[in-house]
């Protein structure tokens, strides 16, 4: 085992309210989440001396990047918390949150800072989602925007089409997952879709966005923020909550060639990442009690179930339809509803729920005795990452 082996832990989780098109500035959501995460850990804001975030705007295209409205960077958060003079360490990592979490884990384990706050604040951009109105398509845009291929839902929908063709799955198979996920969401009062059940018919009759993707294959954009607090394993033991020790991690440099044109690349990259993830923890798929797999779009569930080796290639759709991933199944999956049910939080929903499950704090959806949980973020290729959390420091 060559992994991180529990030298740091997530010790607090905090959510802002999750809303849509809120009149409140995003900065206020970020502060709300920061205060909640810090209090959850039994700490105060004045204990925080490390900051990390993913400063990217929430959407592809040409939306704005106004500080405090569209993004909340490290300098803004240090102001919001009144900690401009006291932050000893920080990082801003464009990409996805496992990168930031691992940077912060290394910082608290090394002593570069004592308590690191990591957050992801996202908004619902103005106008239609992911509007692309540039008249000129340069760089990576030039081989897709002139063809109207600018919507992330379209990029990923081609993968579901190919999967259905290659493996004989159907929209009814996907409906089984979406409905199960919405049922889990009803046990999560924080979730945007809490209180709004969904039937198989609702899914099958929903408006198509990029066929075969309908509305419910896409996560629900929200204004909101999730924050977590990290501490070294030594300090983690004495705080308010049981620590979620980081016992495995993997990040991938696998290129996203051509901007998601070849969907097989997601499985190639995800499989490579999965091998690193299990090796880092000395664990395997059979050791995982609850899985939180990235679901910005529905097809990612198939990618990750197969790439991590929970099932063989082409078996994910049948596996889900069999009930194996329900709360009472052998591999409870996305127990909080994650991005599709809770809201578009770019993977922080996965990380937060993996922490809550492994520390026995997931309320009505708690999987009894969860000792190891996994969270993945991304599409399998570039910037994807995975984390394994364990109840004990040594997996």
């Amino acid at each position: 085992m060559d992994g991180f082996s529990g030298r740091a832990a997530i010790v607090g989780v905090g959510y802002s309210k999750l809303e849509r098109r809120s009149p409140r500035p995003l900065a206020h959501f970020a502060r709300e989440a920061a205060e909640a995460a810090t209090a959850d850990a039994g700490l105060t804001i004045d204990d925080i001396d490390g900051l990390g975030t993913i400063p990217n705007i929430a959407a592809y295209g040409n939306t704005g990047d106004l500080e405090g409205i569209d993004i909340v960077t490290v300098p803004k958060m240090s102001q919001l918390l009144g900690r401009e003079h006291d932050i000893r360490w920080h990082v801003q990592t464009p990409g996805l949150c496992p990168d930031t979490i691992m940077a912060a884990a290394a910082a608290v384990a090394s002593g570069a800072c004592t308590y690191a706050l990591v957050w992801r604040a996202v908004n619902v951009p103005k106008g239609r989602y992911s509007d692309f109105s540039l008249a000129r398509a340069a760089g990576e845009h030039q081989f897709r925007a002139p063809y109207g291929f600018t919507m992330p839902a379209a990029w990923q929908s081609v993968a579901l089409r190919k999967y259905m063709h290659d493996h004989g799955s159907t929209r009814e198979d996907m409906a089984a997952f979406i409905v199960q996920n919405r049922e889990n969401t009803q046990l999560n009062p924080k979730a945007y879709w809490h209180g709004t059940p969904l039937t198989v018919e609702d899914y099958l009759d929903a408006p198509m966005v990029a066929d075969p993707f309908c509305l419910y294959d896409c996560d629900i954009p929200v204004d909101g923020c999730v924050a977590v607090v990290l501490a070294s394993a030594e300090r983690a033991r004495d705080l308010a909550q049981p620590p979620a020790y980081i016992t495995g991690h993997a990040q991938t440099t696998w290129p996203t060639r051509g901007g998601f044109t070849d969907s097989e690349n997601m499985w190639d990259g995800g499989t490579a990442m999965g091998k690193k993830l299990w090796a880092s923890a000395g664990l395997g798929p059979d050791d995982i009690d609850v899985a939180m797999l990235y679901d910005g779009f529905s097809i990612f569930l198939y990618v990750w179930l197969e790439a991590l080796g929970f099932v063989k290639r082409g078996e994910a759709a049948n596996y889900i339809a069999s009930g194996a991933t329900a709360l009472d199944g052998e591999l409870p999956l996305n127990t909080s509803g994650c991005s599709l049910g809770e809201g578009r939080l770019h993977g922080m929903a996965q990380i937060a729920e993996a922490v809550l499950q492994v520390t026995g704090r997931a309320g009505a959806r708690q999987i009894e005795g969860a000792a190891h949980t996994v969270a993945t973020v991304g599409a399998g290729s570039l910037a994807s990452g995975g984390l394994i959390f364990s109840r004990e420091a040594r997996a």
Partner: protein
Amino acid sequence: MSSEGAPAIKPVPVPDEVTAPFWEAANRGVLAIQHCEACDYYVHPPEALCPRCQTPDLEFREVSGKARVYTHTVVRDNVTAGFAEDEPYVIGIIELIEQERLVLVANVVNVGPEDVRIGMPLRVTFERLTEDIALPQFEPDGED
């Protein structure tokens, strides 16, 4: 779906140092794909170094224009400027016959969206966008 005022125009590709030969060829009605002379491998989108052998020994080769539908989507809720009139339209991930998984993005044209199928044989055609830019597009190839 449409925006206010005059109809928006579709985004126009901006050729760069690496991609210019692709667009120059397309403007002449030729599909030319970057090819690594060192390891005999087609690369698309064009890159500065071969992604397989990391040499910069890359040239553009005219290819047959024959292809198949690798996968596709039918866009019904468009967000790209200039496409409102086209809905629903088909975006194909097009696999050229020259190499496995050598794919490019193009619209599948001259066929109804419901009739496009994975594996369908295609051939290249060109759509003039501006005086300097023609887009490679693909249409069904009758010779099955």
